[in-house]
């Protein structure tokens, strides 16, 4: 019963949001405000339950794991940003977070996003792969080099450099085109999802 009611409310709110496509109206604004309010409440509860209760209160108060206290204190320091007098103290917590994050990320990103990607740009030998795979890799190499030349700004793009950067622009345009195509597909998929909800889930819930 409640699930069915929820589906009906979901359908009504979907239609209210769609009404913006005609023009702005109070129904749309109500649905928008409802979404913001419900989301804020949901996320507040989730974050409090998952972070403060599960990750701090239970281990420290319930199990006496005092190693988590420094982390908790740093977390509280961030909240001091709300007061002008003591907001400077929040910088210690942010500095710690930035340092830890950089330590986590920089070596791993260098290895996984740069070194491995550079290595995989080079074509395999004919002994390892088919002629088509090698040609494909060569094509990829041309694209990478010409795009890198396009982004080289220390010399005027004339002569050979200009022609290579033109090739780079062509590769970039193809990349942007593919990206745009995928974006259109993604947006249409979202619409399909809503329509499946309206035409399939809703009648099912109402037992048509």
């Amino acid at each position: 019963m409640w699930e069915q009611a929820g589906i009906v409310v979901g359908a009504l709110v979907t239609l209210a949001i769609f009404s913006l496509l005609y023009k702005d109206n109070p129904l749309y604004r109500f649905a928008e405000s409802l979404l913001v309010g419900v989301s804020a409440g949901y996320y507040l509860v989730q974050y409090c339950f998952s972070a403060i209760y599960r990750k701090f209160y239970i281990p420290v108060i319930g199990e006496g794991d005092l190693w988590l206290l420094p982390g908790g204190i740093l977390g509280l320091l961030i909240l001091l940003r709300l007061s002008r007098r003591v907001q400077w103290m929040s910088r210690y917590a942010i500095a710690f977070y930035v340092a830890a994050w950089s330590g986590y990320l920089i070596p791993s990103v260098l290895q996984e996003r740069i070194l491995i990607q550079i290595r995989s740009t080079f074509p395999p030998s004919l002994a390892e792969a088919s002629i088509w795979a090698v040609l494909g890799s060569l094509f990829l190499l041309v694209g990478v080099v010409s795009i890198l030349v396009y982004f080289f700004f220390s010399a005027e793009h004339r002569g050979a450099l200009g022609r290579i950067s033109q090739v780079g622009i062509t590769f970039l345009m193809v990349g942007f085109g593919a990206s745009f195509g995928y974006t259109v597909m993604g947006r249409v998929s979202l619409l399909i999802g809503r329509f499946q909800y309206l035409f399939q889930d809703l009648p099912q819930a109402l037992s048509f």
Partner: protein
Amino acid sequence: MVTQSGQGEQMGAGEQQDARQGPGQKTPRWTHEMLMNMDRRFIFVVIAIAVAAPLIFPLNLPVRSSREAEAYFNEMEKLQPGDEIIFSFDYEPDTMAELDPMSVATLRHAFRKDVRVLAQTTYAGGVGIAERILRQVAQEYDKVYGEDYVFFGYNPDYSATILRMGESIRSNYPTDHYHAPTDGIPLMKGVDCYDDIELLVTVTASALAEYWIIWAGGKYKQRIIAGNTAIQAVLIYPYYQAGQLAGFLGGLKGAAEYEKLIGVSGAGLLGMDAQSVAHLAIVCFIILGNIGFLIQKSRTKQTGGPRDSRQGG
């Protein structure tokens, strides 16, 4: 290109045209002006019909599977009964339409092969999605919570979650989402880190697949497959090409391909007709817009006017 201008802009363009032509000259204004300044509400209606009609009257257009989807399928197919996988629901309700079909199909494939699933989410908004899908698919295959699958819930800070699971899943999740101690869950016997996991599946709408690759894949050599939104798929190709990702699905099309490979029809395959017809409508609008642009360009060339109406009359 078809502009998404409203009626106000149409009037502006028409007045500009009148000013150029002068009084007494009658020209077939409707041709390129209509194409160039189409009312966006007309476009919305056509797209709505293009999406709705195939959902009501399916066309059953063929779906061909891509190499990436086949690689994703093969990774799942290699799993043996009793193997464990980590399944991370790394998305929220805004991308459910694209990613729910992937999650459902992957769990169906896993449960059909009696593979055990350790589920979690790195998004607060993913909790409800994960619970609903796990319950639905587990019921379909008579799977028991705690023995065949477990849900750890949401853990704040994805970076710490990914790294810590390489050391100990138990220390990362002392309890499951329903407050049961992880040590007491039968499924968790002998399972505590990536070394004990055959495959990691992330279904994500963000760059999270990259972080799983960087930390779980790079540091702990965990084998990974990913389901991504269409927008994200473009950024995932380099990792697949480099072998850092064993397979991936891109958007609703990827979900449909995978559903076809496992032989179970779902929302992905059902949505493919609508996707194809909507794309056809969009391509038609692009062609019409460009025809209008070319006509306008040739006319302004003849009259010696500006090359583009967007530059002013």
